[in-house]
């Protein structure tokens, strides 16, 4: 995967320059404080950092077991346990942020002759009792491989360090990020966004993506590797599409647009909304916690749009690419992560830079940061 290659390379370079993390394995560091707002971020070689958002300083660093990649995180509803898809996309981990202890581990492959990888799929039930991931398995025969149908694997989060699936269900191919709604339904992004019953494995389309029927629109292009838990409680991802002038569908005269899909996790309400002309690529985008009509996007610039007007409000230059965007709860600060090993902080109104938080260790690469209040 192109993204992975690029970021992996950057990681190799950065880790050469930056050396080992400051915190050695086995250190637990201070417990998190109730009511305080934190961000978690993962990076090479295999760190899980907790950043205090009041001081914008690294609060502690946990060293995770096995190997890094992709470092996709989810914060448990207890706001104490971070779950991470890691070990080259092959294992799920639960890390107690107070003690830095690994409290949960599951290998996605179910047999020694099977290889299974999850492409950014990791989600928790609203009560935090179950964790979900879609394994893409391949059976390794003596002289050939057989690609098997993807499985949604459901684990109990209290199953310990050698967790086995409680249930598993065959699901469509090409599933990436996912999150559970308040009613327990699991929303999974794939060719379309599916809504799945985690008890029966039955699913249907909650929001048509590849198969949307929007007159004069091309099918959307969607690649969203960042499973962000937002203060708005929406499960959202960006798309781009061509908007043709007429039925001839000439790509040369089409307008190209940016938009977002969103599922309101409280109500299950789906939204498909264009928010901007496509002028540059954003790896991630997020609506402001304080103004749902403002969309922020980032890759080579940080940009802010008025969704209704589909208009660029402001843009900020960056000193390098950032892949993953986040807000503090107040919506006053924007945090840019991913790529290298620094978090850039911007004022959400003025888009003026407020500073940088250097993370011990190497690249965050394609990792997802999460912000939460303990």
């Amino acid at each position, binding site marked *: 995967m192109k993204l992975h290659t690029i970021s992996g390379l950057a990681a190799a370079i950065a880790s050469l320059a930056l050396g080992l993390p400051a915190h050695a394995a086995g250190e637990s560091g201070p417990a998190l404080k109730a009511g305080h707002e934190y961000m978690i971020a993962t990076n090479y070689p295999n760190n899980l950092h907790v950043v205090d958002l009041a001081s914008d300083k690294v609060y502690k660093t946990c060293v995770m077991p096995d190997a890094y990649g992709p470092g996709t995180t989810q914060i448990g509803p207890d706001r104490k346990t971070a779950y991470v898809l890691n070990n080259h996309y092959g294992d799920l981990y639960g890390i107690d942020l107070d003690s830095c202890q690994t409290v949960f581990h599951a290998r996605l492959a179910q047999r020694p002759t099977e290889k299974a990888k999850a492409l950014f799929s990791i989600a928790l039930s609203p009560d935090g009792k179950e964790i979900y991931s879609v394994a893409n398995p391949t059976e390794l025969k003596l002289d050939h491989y057989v690609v098997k149908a993807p499985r949604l694997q459901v684990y109990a989060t209290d199953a310990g360090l050698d967790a086995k699936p409680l249930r598993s269900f065959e699901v469509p191919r090409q599933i990436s990020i996912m999150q559970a709604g308040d009613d327990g339904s699991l929303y999974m992004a794939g060719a379309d966004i599916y809504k799945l019953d985690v008890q029966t494995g039955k699913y249907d389309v909650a929001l048509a993506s590849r198969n949307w029927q929007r007159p004069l629109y091309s099918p959307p292009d*969607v690649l969203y590797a960042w499973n962000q838990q937002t203060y708005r409680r929406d499960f959202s991802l960006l798309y781009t599409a061509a908007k043709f002038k007429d039925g001839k569908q000439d790509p040369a005269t089409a307008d190209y647009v940016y938009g977002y899909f969103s599922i309101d996790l409280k109500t299950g309400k789906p939204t498909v909304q264009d928010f901007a002309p496509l002028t540059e690529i954003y790896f991630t985008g997020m609506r402001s916690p304080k103004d749902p009509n403002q969309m922020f996007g980032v890759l080579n610039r940080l940009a802010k749009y008025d969704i209704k007007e589909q208009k660029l409000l402001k843009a900020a230059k960056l000193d390098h690419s950032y892949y993953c965007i986040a807000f503090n709860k107040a919506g006053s600060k924007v945090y840019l992560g991913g790529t290298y090993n620094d978090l850039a902080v911007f004022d959400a109104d003025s888009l003026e830079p407020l500073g940088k938080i250097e993370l011990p260790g190497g690249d965050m690469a394609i990792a997802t940061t999460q912000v939460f209040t303990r």
Partner: protein
Amino acid sequence: MMTRLRYYLGAGSLAMAVASLAQPALAAERTGAQILGETCVACHAKEGDEQFSRISHQRKTPEGWLMSIARMQVMHGVKISDDDRRTLVKYLADQQGLAPSETEGVRYAMERRLNTVEQFDDQFAQMCARCHSGARVALQRRPAKEWEHLVNFHLGQWPSLEYQAQSRDRDWLPIALGEMVPKLASQYALDNPAWADWQKAKPEAAALAGQWSFSGHLPARGDVRGVMSVESGEGDAFKVSLKGQYADGKPLEGSGSALLYNGYEWRANLKVDGVAMRQVFSALNGEMRGRMFETEHDERGLDFVAARAGTPRLLAVQPGYLKAGSEAELTLVGSELSGTPDFGPGVEVVKVLEQSPERLRVKVRAAANAAAGSRAVAVGALKGANFAVYRSVSEVKVVPAFSVARVGDNGGSTPKMQGRFDAEAWGQDAAGKAFRIGYLPARWSVEAFDERAAEDEDVKYAGRMQADGVFVPGDAGPNPARKMSTNNAGNLKVIAQLDDGGKPLKGEGQLIVTVQRWNNPPLP
């Protein structure tokens, strides 16, 4: 797995493995059949008489077999000595190779012509040639079941494949299995009469021994000609020596060894003027054709054609053009050349300066009213080389029109990959039809390809165009002096300017300067 691949087969060791294609196995203790029966059988079930699962149902090039065996080493932990691997590649390439006709049109991949713009249909290009060359696929023959295994291997090994652009917009696996497998099985079938015929017609390797007259062209350097001496050894191996000269009179000398696969696939390693070079030729009917290139810099190489003594051939006229109303010295290169050359009406041979079976150096004059256009040259009954008479240059093309150079060095493991350019002049005949004149000297420069390249100052950072048409890319790694510390990539116009009797002419090509090629297998 990718980490292991990089670890075990870094650029250096893979290059060594490729270079070994030109070496016979020394003191081989096991035959290919024995290696299959003793080593490969650990995973590949024996299917009757010397048949093994998977292996016996595929045919491919020496490079293709080398890549398969290397993959078994890297990904599946096969322990095999370099000598045994050489033996096995030779055995499989001989027993299960491709007929010459099966490699037609896709030899550029073996010849490392990495600026080739491939021509495959959209579906093939998107489903197969999105990550690697289409030629890598087209240089294999398999039945449907084996193509199906290949699809499963790809998705199993690279699970992110179906999430990438031009995959995530479709049901990739059902299309790969349901549409591509039948298509590949029909287009590149294991069973092909051409292969059956070739196995019967395959000549003895020893027939290649002898003197070979050669002609070549090295971009940004010029024409070259000479004689390659080939001495037959054991096991289809050869000793090779080259003695020739460039058009400017500078000598070219080298020697090394070669190995012939499957009756016609010639692979040689030579030291030419102190530089390690490889030859990838097809040797058929007394002719060798292909490319000779530097082992460490495969972008530096020459088109090569040779004819064996005893095989009358006219290979080339150097240079292959003459301006009407002017006089020049030309060299005809070939084999068993005798008699005075005939350049057609209006072009007169003034004097024969030198004559040998391999070379005919003449002074010729084109009349002012000689017809402009491309014409066949004859030496006695021999034809095969064209020659252009022109009155004026109507167009200049940059060759290659589209190319890629890569940043490198600067403490990294990968050298810079240069761009090398020729200015190809074209004329118009009386009927207004365009004809190729040949490569003319030009003044070289680069410009920003578009507004974005201008804004990013690509000309400043991406590298430097030399006076001889060689573009040397910038250093590898993030560049703190550039916007967002980006690397020295760039999108450039390559400009060749020349004067044709006071008339300024300009040709343009596009050069992408990009990052290193980290994964650089024998077949791109």
